[in-house]
């Protein structure tokens, strides 16, 4: 079907008019736009879910460091910790945090991941969807529905701003991934269309202003750990909306605020590594060591 869903308002309207869930509208739109069947859209989505699972599985059993030697063994540490002392918030919390780190560490080892929406934020959506799906024992179709729902959120936000730290800071990478995950979690937990969008909105609102200041320009510090934080952050948003807590600022206006915040953000804090953590005393020392390693 030919749907116009360039804003959250239009998306909700299309859902209500057709009495459909968000993922149904999106899969029909994608099928229409690219002249393929909705089954093909779902098969492509499933392929991505399987790649996400593979990355988690390999990431959980490795502690190989990255080229820089800075990161790569946090998943192993966290697993050890949980073995000795289970997480205060239980199994789901353990899974989400370890899956997010495992995926990001696979990324920095130059192994295979799914950019979602970007490589630097690749741990968040898989951690939330796959951990929650395991805990709730849902079907494969439910996982696909959740990932399409997450993708719809990113799709709409990206009509207004490119998903790149260089354009709008980390709010456009890990921030958007957290909003996407909040929507996916709400879909998995049986929330309404309005609640799903609301969850994304609450999550996005809470990351406005998040900068991109990676040490040495690498997708490592603070990216790896941030993925674990923002995956948990998504669950907070889902819990709030399922209690019918609503964002007082409508979704599209929050996206506008994010775009404006991205424009106002200093270029020094947008993936140039010329400010923030990158230019702390320790950040500079790490960068200098790295330059030696790069042979420049």
């Amino acid at each position, binding site marked *: 079907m030919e749907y116009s869903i360039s804003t959250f308002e239009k998306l909700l309207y299309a859902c209500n008019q057709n009495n459909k869930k968000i993922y149904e509208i999106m899969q029909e739109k994608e099928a229409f736009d690219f002249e393929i069947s909705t089954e093909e859209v779902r098969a492509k989505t499933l392929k991505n879910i399987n790649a996400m699972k593979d990355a988690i599985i390999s990431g959980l059993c490795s502690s190989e460091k990255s080229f820089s030697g800075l990161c790569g063994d946090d998943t192993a540490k966290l697993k050890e910790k949980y073995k000795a002392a289970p997480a205060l918030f239980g199994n789901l919390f353990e899974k989400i945090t370890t899956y997010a780190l495992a995926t990001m560490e696979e990324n920095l080892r130059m*192994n*295979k991941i799914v950019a*979602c929406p*970007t490589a630097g934020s690749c741990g968040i959506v898989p951690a939330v969807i796959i951990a929650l799906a395991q805990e709730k024992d849902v079907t494969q179709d439910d996982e696909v529905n959740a990932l399409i729902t997450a*993708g719809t959120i990113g*799709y709409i936000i990206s009509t207004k701003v490119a998903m790149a730290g260089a354009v709008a800071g980390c709010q456009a990478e890990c921030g958007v991934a957290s909003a996407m995950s909040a929507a996916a979690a709400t879909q998995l937990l049986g929330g309404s269309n309005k609640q799903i969008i609301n969850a994304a909105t609450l999550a996005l609102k809470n990351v406005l202003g998040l900068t991109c200041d990676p040490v040495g320009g690498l997708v490592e510090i603070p990216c790896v750990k941030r993925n674990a934080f923002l995956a948990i952050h998504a669950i907070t948003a889902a819990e709030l909306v399922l209690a019918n807590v609503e964002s007082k600022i409508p979704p599209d206006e929050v996206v506008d605020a994010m775009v404006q915040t991205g424009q106002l953000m200093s270029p020094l804090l947008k993936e140039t590594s010329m400010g923030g953590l990158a230019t702390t005393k320790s950040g500079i020392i790490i960068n200098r060591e790295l330059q030696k390693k*790069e042979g*420049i």
Partner: protein
Amino acid sequence: MKQRSLFDVISPIMTGPSSSHTAGAVRLGLLARNIYKETPNKVTFKLYNSFAQTGKGHGTDKGLLAGLLGFGVDSEQIKNIYNCELAQNIEYTYEFEQNIDRHPNAVDFVLEGNINMTISGNSVGAGNVEIVKIDDFSTRISGEYNTLILFYKDKPGMISRVSTLIQDENINIASLDCDRNARGETASMCICLDSKISDEVIRKIEEIDDVYFVRNVKRLEA
């Protein structure tokens, strides 16, 4: 403008760690391969600015070589490309430079073999790339379209002769850019197409008088 997709957000399945510095590097390598049309004997990769500064940490060096050898963004060969058999048949070197006149993520492929060619490209973010120069000519190849590249003698009627052949095949032209050294000298044409073009039409275009060079650069799948 490109039709936006759900899978711009969820995808690609790729080798980490960076969409711009790793996946983008592979895609630039693939485009350079498609333009050069064969594996060169020797390549010098000139990396500029951020590509030069953080390239090794992001595997940009490996990605460029892997793409040039024909591996895709999700290939497991990228990480160990230097040990890959195909890499033993080609001589490669890297140079690192800072140049404020170039894009932050810029690269030149200086290719030597049956012909010598320099191809310049940029990784413009989120895995998107563009080839901006082949030898001295400006181009605009993003890999999102099947793209036809021509070098020819600048003279009246060339554009219409080429476009007629494309039209006869019922292919829609999405965009067309031209550039030339000077009036009457060598010119270049860069045509983005909405569908695949047959070898037959390529051959007919090659047969046009004063067309020196034709390349059909296929759309990148990922």
